[in-house]
């Protein structure tokens, strides 16, 4: 136990690439306590009872409806889960807030309103606020008495958020800032009482953040945006017209705003990863039920291999992102605990803990949103013609999912970011990527190892594959970094391909380790489905590594290098074939027998 604890403390963001993790190192969602499960159950009941039956009213933006949902969620304590007890919240750990995000993720537009309230609306004050600011705002945000929104994006400052033009000008008496500017895509804007606003003071390099109350005045709004999905979420442009903001409402220091924005986005990304899980499970359950009920050619369409294929892929990919999410969530919690034990103050420890796992945050955001997109797309397809009808649940799920690849930093930005962060940490000496990459290079020049994994050990072969996947990543990343040096940021295509390799490695490893841990508790027989899903996912991930690796390597390596590297890639992406058809059929049959997503925690 002591060793495990020590390992956990030592864990750093991105370190998974250069060290072997054990099943005992990771947290699995099956380990959630009775209390955490009960919180999840309550939130699920809330979504089933208060959100799903009223989805049409919500999406029609019925006056007051979303506020009333937030009020009810506030009464149930759902809005204050991350807020410490001294400010009227529950002070639960980060992974509990991930679990709630997961369950509420099934709630379509409500999920976005909830995320804006509890995440980007509340957390900047929690993490960066002064004691007075926390006392004043947090208790009311935790109950829902205050609704919050976050104003960062501008018409000309989207992905390049720090280029915003909104100005904050200090009054002659030094007591008030006057904020002027235009913000867009502002979630919850229509009913928000509190706006976290980012503006530039004079010609500062970086933005500054302010807590702006609606009552300060001089705030106007455009009509509700007409959107493809999450139609029930209030989204407006917000105009600040010399809005007077007392100097004591500045968040953190002058010029600290961009740092706040980046850190809060990290949290948003982790939560978005978790937030897709509930949506995926909802869609899979609906699709499984439909596949059982819909009869064509004299039988349920679920009997057909083509439909089983989809249900199996949907389940396996959902199981995979779930495995990765709670692994990362626990790593954040452990880091926070570690930093607090070393004397760091609560809010700062939480921020540093999350910042440490910014690479994983980007991984979860990209992967989660793409799994959701896949699941809703196949959900529509299983429904056939009915999938295209607005009377069936798939149409809304399909539209609502699409935003996830865009907000909290587009998937393209996140892909490049995560590789960039890995390289930066390596250059700073925080992660030993280059040393490990060098070792892989040397291994490539030597005689290949004919060592065979010990078959008596559960998942020994799969773990050997994972080890090789890491080598494939290190080889490609290391060589690309050496080739392009400081100009690597200009090679977006290569960065994105490498990002995919990293993402799949993390997710596949999390999946295999989760199942290994689960089998240790429940035995192999009870985990047939999970074992099959893990093997299926690993095969899928290895394929992606091979494809993306080839794409990256062929884009930059010289001919001799290319030959060696492609041979290496082939060696490192070798995997014994499994009977894909039977594997998928087994997963689908378990799902169809339950008529719902069958691998819930």
């Amino acid at each position: 136990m002591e060793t495990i604890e020590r390992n956990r403390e030592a864990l750093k963001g991105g370190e998974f690439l250069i060290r072997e993790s054990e099943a005992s190192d990771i947290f699995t969602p099956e380990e959630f306590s009775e209390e955490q499960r009960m919180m999840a159950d309550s939130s699920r009941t809330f979504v089933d009872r208060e959100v799903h039956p009223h989805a049409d009213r919500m999406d029609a933006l019925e006056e007051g409806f979303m506020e009333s949902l937030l009020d009810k969620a506030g009464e149930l304590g759902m809005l204050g889960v991350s807020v410490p007890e001294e400010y009227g919240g529950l002070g639960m750990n980060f992974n509990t807030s991930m679990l709630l995000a997961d369950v509420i993720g099934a709630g379509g537009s409500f999920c976005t309103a909830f995320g804006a309230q509890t995440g980007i609306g509340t957390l900047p004050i929690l993490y960066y606020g002064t004691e007075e600011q926390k006392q004043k705002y947090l208790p009311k945000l935790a109950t829902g008495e205050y609704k919050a929104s976050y104003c960062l994006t501008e018409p000309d400052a989207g992905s390049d958020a720090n280029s915003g033009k909104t100005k904050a000008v200090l009054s002659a008496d030094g007591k008030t800032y006057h904020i002027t500017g235009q913000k867009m895509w502002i979630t919850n804007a229509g009913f928000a009482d509190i706006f976290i606003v980012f503006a530039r003071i004079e010609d500062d390099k970086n933005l500054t953040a302010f807590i702006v109350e609606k009552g300060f005045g001089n705030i106007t709004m455009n009509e509700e945006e007409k959107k493809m999905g999450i139609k029930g979420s209030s989204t407006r442009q917000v105009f600040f017209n010399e809005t007077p903001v007392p100097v004591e409402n500045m968040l953190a220091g002058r010029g600290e705003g961009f740092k706040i924005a980046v850190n809060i986005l990290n949290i948003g990304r982790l939560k978005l990863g978790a937030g897709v899980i509930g949506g995926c499970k909802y869609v899979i359950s609906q699709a499984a039920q439909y596949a059982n009920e819909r009869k064509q050619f004299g039988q349920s369409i679920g009997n057909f291999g083509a439909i089983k294929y989809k249900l199996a892929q949907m389940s396996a990919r959902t199981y995979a992102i779930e495995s990765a999410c709670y692994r990362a969530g626990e790593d954040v919690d452990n880091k926070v605990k570690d930093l607090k034990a070393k004397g760091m103050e609560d809010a700062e420890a939480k921020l540093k803990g999350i910042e440490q796992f910014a690479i994983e945050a980007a991984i979860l955001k990209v992967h989660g949103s793409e799994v959701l997109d896949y699941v809703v797309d196949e959900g529509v397809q299983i429904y056939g013609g009915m999938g295209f009808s607005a009377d069936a649940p798939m149409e809304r799920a399909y539209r609502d999912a699409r935003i996830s690849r865009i907000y909290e930093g587009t998937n393209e930005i996140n892909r490049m970011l995560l590789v960039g962060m890995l390289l930066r940490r390596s250059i700073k000496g925080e992660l030993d990527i280059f040393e490990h990459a060098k070792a892989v290079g040397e291994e490539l020049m030597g005689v290949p190892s004919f060592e065979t994994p010990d078959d008596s050990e559960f998942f020994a072969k799969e773990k050997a594959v994972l080890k090789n996947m890491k080598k494939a990543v290190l080889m490609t990343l290391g060589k690309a970094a050496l080739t392009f040096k400081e100009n690597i940021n200009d090679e977006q295509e290569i960065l994105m391909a490498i990002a995919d390799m990293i993402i799949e490695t993390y997710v596949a490893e999390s999946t295999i380790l989760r199942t290994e841990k689960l089998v240790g508790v429940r035995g192999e027989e009870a985990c047939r489905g999970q074992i099959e899903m893990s093997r299926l996912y690993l095969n899928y991930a290895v394929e992606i590594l091979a494809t993306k690796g080839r794409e990256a390597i062929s884009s930059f390596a010289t001919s001799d290098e290319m030959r060696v590297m492609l041979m290496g890639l082939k060696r490192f992406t070798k995997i014994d074939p499994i009977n894909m058809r039977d594997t998928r059929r087994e997963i689908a049959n378990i799902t169809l027998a339950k008529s719902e997503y069958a691998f819930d925690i």
Partner: protein
Amino acid sequence: MKILVCISHVPDTTSKIKFSDNALDTNGMSFVIGPYDDYALARAVELKESHKATVTAINVGKSDTEPTIRKALAIGADDAIRVDAEPIDAFFVATQIAEIAKSENYDLILMGREASDYNGGQVHGMVAEMLDMQAIVPCMTLDIDGNTATMTREIEGGKEIITCDLPFVAGCQEPIAEWKIPNMRGIMMARKKPLKVVEAVQPEVLIETKSYELPPARSNCKMFTSDDMASLVRALKEEAKVI
């Protein structure tokens, strides 16, 4: 005012029922508070607020029922009692509840009109008899003024409004109250609330279960066109063998 709410621990109503070794196969099954008991609990928690009542939840079951009991605590019961025994049958369960209630002077003993596992609907009547109280079933609304309760019962073709002095036993159903979702703080408080485990008394076992079987699978619906009476008659005679 002291309220005792009897909570059954039943399979989630969406569970697929299976049997193995002549017993319910609980593998992979999740359990909930009996839906009718959940209504009784919800009304008790409302009365707690409006009448300064205390609410005790009671369950007859082994330790695996404790998560369900803690859910009742999270919803708002002040404390709970678990009678440590398998709930063999209605008489056994009623005996345990009456045994506890004898010494505690509850003003109200509420439960669902029936549990959703065996749907016996007998415990309330038995408990009332054992304690020499009235039993009102089904109790669809419940208001209390002083020592008198006013209730609504559904009867053939209408509703009956009745009054009854405390104490009494009621078997509740909707619309007595709306199910309550445990709130987050309630969930955190639940583990700090007392959950007392008591030994069961051993009444004579009156019922022995011989075996379980699932109802026969429903056969498919066969459609006949209105001008094909001959086929219909033939099918009724030869296939269904009902005429």
